[in-house]
């Protein structure tokens, strides 16, 4: 099906409850529906049309039309479409039907707009505070336009503590984080442990919620946001950088020059290289295998050096501006990059050969952190986690951007469903990245690296962009706005979805496996930039009936 057919299908079923549809180029379309049929449309899209849930967005549009906008974004991976299902919400007592019983994956996203914008998801299965810090007073919503970005509300109470659920009987709570050697970032897991077995957990994360979206909507300008976006996550910064730039370009139809697209692709793949090498190293470190950790970092270091040579910094490349890139890859750099990835390929192949057969490592990773296809669908898991479960989703192929439609590569899939599978997927994706970089270096076209933008950026346009980060699809949603800055900029990092699958993955696993399972999604809590509690008491996932979901798949 294409966009038109989907819209026709929906119109047939819902008639004029579908208020408005927009089909944009780049295979994106927007549907505005009546708020009372939002849930049903979601059900059709998610269950009948088998779309993948991306994220939910709340927008404060009161100063324009007196209400809020709620959008649920979906992706039709097999038809290469991105869809945003939107509904207008009343401005005085904003509430919207919760879709968590149909789409469990929307749990956090809905709680997030509940926290930040005060739009109440009616019927949410676990409406607990997610993003804001413990001491934040109720009824203050920082993402509303009337909230000054730099103020601390009256009634902020530093000593207020979070109300956790009670531990299941017979279990002891093992606090895990925010400062824990496995977690490089602050997030708190309250593990319910019986002896050594993790029986469940409650997550209180979003401690790295810095309010980047608010910053982008109220302070920074279009061309400053890339620098902030890059710092959403220090490892996959370039992904956010590119995703943001593409979202804005998508909204207003700016075409970056081809050379800049190749450069973006190269830098994204370089980042994937260093991120995957880093992850393999960290996974080894967590399982106590420090030597491989050291060697992964040794092999990775030249990537950092060449990135530094190209962009001027090892990690934060500060690559994109709207309509282009800032750093060019000259002929010498091109040569040097070829050498670096050539060497990397040889040494990595040795490591992969050794590790593949390492039964010691397999013992620690096989059967750990199981995420099967059902969980992938229900929690909308992404990236290597999904691919290790045999679900071949990859935004680079499904929603091509930059120069990815001009290069050839394979989507690495494994069906181990466990940490070992994710290890394998990541190890082999390194070779795919090398392949892509080689092709790009060869095909790179001469020309400008920055499009000339002559007009102002128009107001009120929607833009979506999905970029495949090393750890999964990273989604940016932009509504352009006045004052040279977007009206709404929503980031959905892959960890945001993947983390929601972790409680199921670690249930009934050993404490020692918990760290590995958690690490296997390559969590980047700063990526989520917001927070929430999850608790999985039962691990069985059944699809279909919402009732069953409520009882079986308890997203408390």
């Amino acid at each position, binding site marked *: 099906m294409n966009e038109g057919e989907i819209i026709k299908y929906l119109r047939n079923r819902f008639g004029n409850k579908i208020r408005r549809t927009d089909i944009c180029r780049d295979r994106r379309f927007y549907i505005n529906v009546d708020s009372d049929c939002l849930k049903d449309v979601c059900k059709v899209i998610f269950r009948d049309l088998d779309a993948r849930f991306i994220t939910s967005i709340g927008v404060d549009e009161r100063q324009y039309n007196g209400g809020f906008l709620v959008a649920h974004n979906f992706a039709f991976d097999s038809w290469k479409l991105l869809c945003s299902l939107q509904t207008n919400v009343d401005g005085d007592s904003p509430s919207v039907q919760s879709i968590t019983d149909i789409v469990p994956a929307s749990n956090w996203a809905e709680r997030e707009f509940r926290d930040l914008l005060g739009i109440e998801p009616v019927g949410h299965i676990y409406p607990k505070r997610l993003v804001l810090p413990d001491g934040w007073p109720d009824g203050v919503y920082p993402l509303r336009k009337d909230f000054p970005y730099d103020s601390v509300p009256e009634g902020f109470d530093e000593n207020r503590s979070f109300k956790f659920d009670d531990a299941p009987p017979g279990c002891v709570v093992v606090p895990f984080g925010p400062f824990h050697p496995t977690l490089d970032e602050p997030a708190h897991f309250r593990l319910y442990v019986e002896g050594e077995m993790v029986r469940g957990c409650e997550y209180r994360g979003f401690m790295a919620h810095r309010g980047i979206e608010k910053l982008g909507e109220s302070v920074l300008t279009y061309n400053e946001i890339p620098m902030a976006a890059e710092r959403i996550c220090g490892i996959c910064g370039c992904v956010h950088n590119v995703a943001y730039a593409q979202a804005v370009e998508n909204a207003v139809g700016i075409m970056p020059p081809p050379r800049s697209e190749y450069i973006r692709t190269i830098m994204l793949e370089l980042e994937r290289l260093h991120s995957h090498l880093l992850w393999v190293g960290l996974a080894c470190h967590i399982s106590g295998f420090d*030597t491989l950790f050291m060697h992964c970092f040794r092999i990775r270091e030249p990537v950092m050096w060449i990135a530094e040579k190209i962009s001027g910094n090892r990690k934060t490349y*500060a690559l994109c501006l709207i309509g282009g890139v800032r750093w060019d890859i000259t002929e010498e750099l091109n040569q040097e990059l070829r050498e670096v990835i050539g060497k990397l390929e040889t*040494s990595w192949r040795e490591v992969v050969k050794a590790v593949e057969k390492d039964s010691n490592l397999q013992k620690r990773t096989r059967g750990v952190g199981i995420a099967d296809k059902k969980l992938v669908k229900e929690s909308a898991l992404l990236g290597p986690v999904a691919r290790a479960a045999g679900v071949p989703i990859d935004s680079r192929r499904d929603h091509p951007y930059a120069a990815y439609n001009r290069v050839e590569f394979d989507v690495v899939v494994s069906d181990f469903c466990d940490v070992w599978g994710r290890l394998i997927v990541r190890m082999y994706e390194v070779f795919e990245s090398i392949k892509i970089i080689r092709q790009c270096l060869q095909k790179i076209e001469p020309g400008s690296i920055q499009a000339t933008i002559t007009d102002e950026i128009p107001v009120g346009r929607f833009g979506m962009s999905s970029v495949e980060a090393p750890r999964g699809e990273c989604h940016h949603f932009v509504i352009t706005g006045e004052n040279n800055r977007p009206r709404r900029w929503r980031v959905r990092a892959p960890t945001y979805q993947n983390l929601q699958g972790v409680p199921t993955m670690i249930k009934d696993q050993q404490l020692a496996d918990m760290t590995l399972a958690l690490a296997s999604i390559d969590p980047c809590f700063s990526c989520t930039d917001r927070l929430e509690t999850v608790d999985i008491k039962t691990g069985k996932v059944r699809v279909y009936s919402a009732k069953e979901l409520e009882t079986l798949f308890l997203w408390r």
Partner: protein
Amino acid sequence: MSFISKIRETLICLKAGRVTLPYPYQPRPAPEKFRGRPIFDASKCIGCAGCANNCPAREILVLDICQEIRILKYLGRRCTYCGRCADVCPENAITMSKDYETATNNIADIQQKLELFMSTCQRCGRCFKEPSPLEQLKLKGYRFDDLANERWIFKSKSYLDNFKVSDDIHIELD
């Protein structure tokens, strides 16, 4: 066979040899394009505040202490080293140096203060703003224009009074 793969791994280890760099004992220069500490050249600066306007971290502070004297202060402490200031500077007064050895025990050490002499517009009496082709984005909404957002530049004085960390923009009128 685990044993063989262990031997393989050991071989990888030994093959690599010792790679540790002798860094602190021998200097290790940064590459050409490296974006290190921005260096402000007072002799070139025209005080357009383009850098302040484009700094994502909003850490280049501008304060007009009197009509003729504009103080431009680079704090350094929250600099993201993105190099946008150098990009937009019409006079190339800012260069991203290759200096990264900026560790210090006093954060005030990395700040730079420029006292600029501004010519005065005959008509309104305010500082003369150089109309510069800051970038290709021809958009309105520079912070400087939008009164509500002028704070980065002109809120400075109150900012300085309220802020607990006094060295943020402690401007001495010497």
